[in-house]
């Protein structure tokens, strides 16, 4: 029994690097990311009977990690810095991307269908940099929705947001990301 647990502990270690990088992407704070992974390992060791090779170990660990990330986010969002964030405010109806009559100031270009970009490490570098341009909370809501694929309802419940708040935050996040990607990826030699 003890031997089995040591084996599992060793196997967990081999996933640490990936899990920390994933948590760091979500949390933007290395110490917090490492905490989340540590707690993931503790949960994994405590409930390893449940695992029993039902899925890939990494998939199982990632699922646990997501929950740890949410717990950390939720406890942090109770504090003042995240709650008072600008992007939590109700929509003022104005967006810098549009003119007075709601027309595009800098119209979106045709990106084509550049799925081959997914194979390029430069593409991902640009994508991750552009995510960091977003305010912290906006980036988090965006990744909960688009990276983790949580439903709007789940996100609202977890972060105590109204549906209209969520729509505003996601709209701004998408605007920010596509503007940054246009400038730094599609506008240049890759477009």
């Amino acid at each position, binding site marked *: 029994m003890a031997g089995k647990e040591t084996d599992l502990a060793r196997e967990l270690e081999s996933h640490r690097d*990936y899990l920390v990088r994933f948590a760091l*992407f979500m949390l933007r704070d290395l110490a917090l990311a490492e905490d989340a992974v540590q707690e993931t390992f503790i949960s994994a060791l405590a409930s390893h009977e449940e695992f029993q090779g039902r899925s890939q170990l990494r998939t199982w660990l990632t699922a646990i990690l997501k929950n740890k990330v949410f717990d950390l986010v939720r406890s942090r969002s109770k504090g003042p810095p995240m709650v008072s964030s600008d992007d939590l405010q109700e929509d003022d109806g104005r967006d810098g991307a549009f003119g007075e009559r709601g027309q595009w100031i800098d119209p979106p270009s045709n*990106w084509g269908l550049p799925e081959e970009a997914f194979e390029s490490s430069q593409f*991902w570098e640009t994508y991750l940099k552009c995510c960091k341009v977003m305010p912290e909370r906006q980036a988090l809501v965006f*990744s909960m929705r688009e990276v983790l694929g949580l439903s709007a309802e789940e996100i609202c419940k977890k972060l105590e947001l109204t549906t209209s708040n969520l729509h505003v935050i996601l709209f701004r996040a998408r605007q920010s990301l596509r503007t940054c*990607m246009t400038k730094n990826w599609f506008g240049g030699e890759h477009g």
Partner: protein
Amino acid sequence: MGKLMYSCEQAARLSSRAMEEPLGPVDRTMLRLHLMMCANCTNFSRQIEFLRRASRKVPEAIDRGKT
């Protein structure tokens, strides 16, 4: 263009919202009408859909060390 048409800003916000929930019949029709006539908003809509496909691949990208 008169009030009969949604503005680009309205259309873009609806395109974004439609990625979270189904739109009501009026909004859906008005958005479709706008997109038929507006290349800019069609580009916007395709861009945010592309970004969703990209975002779903972030864990893979991190896994391959492509960070």
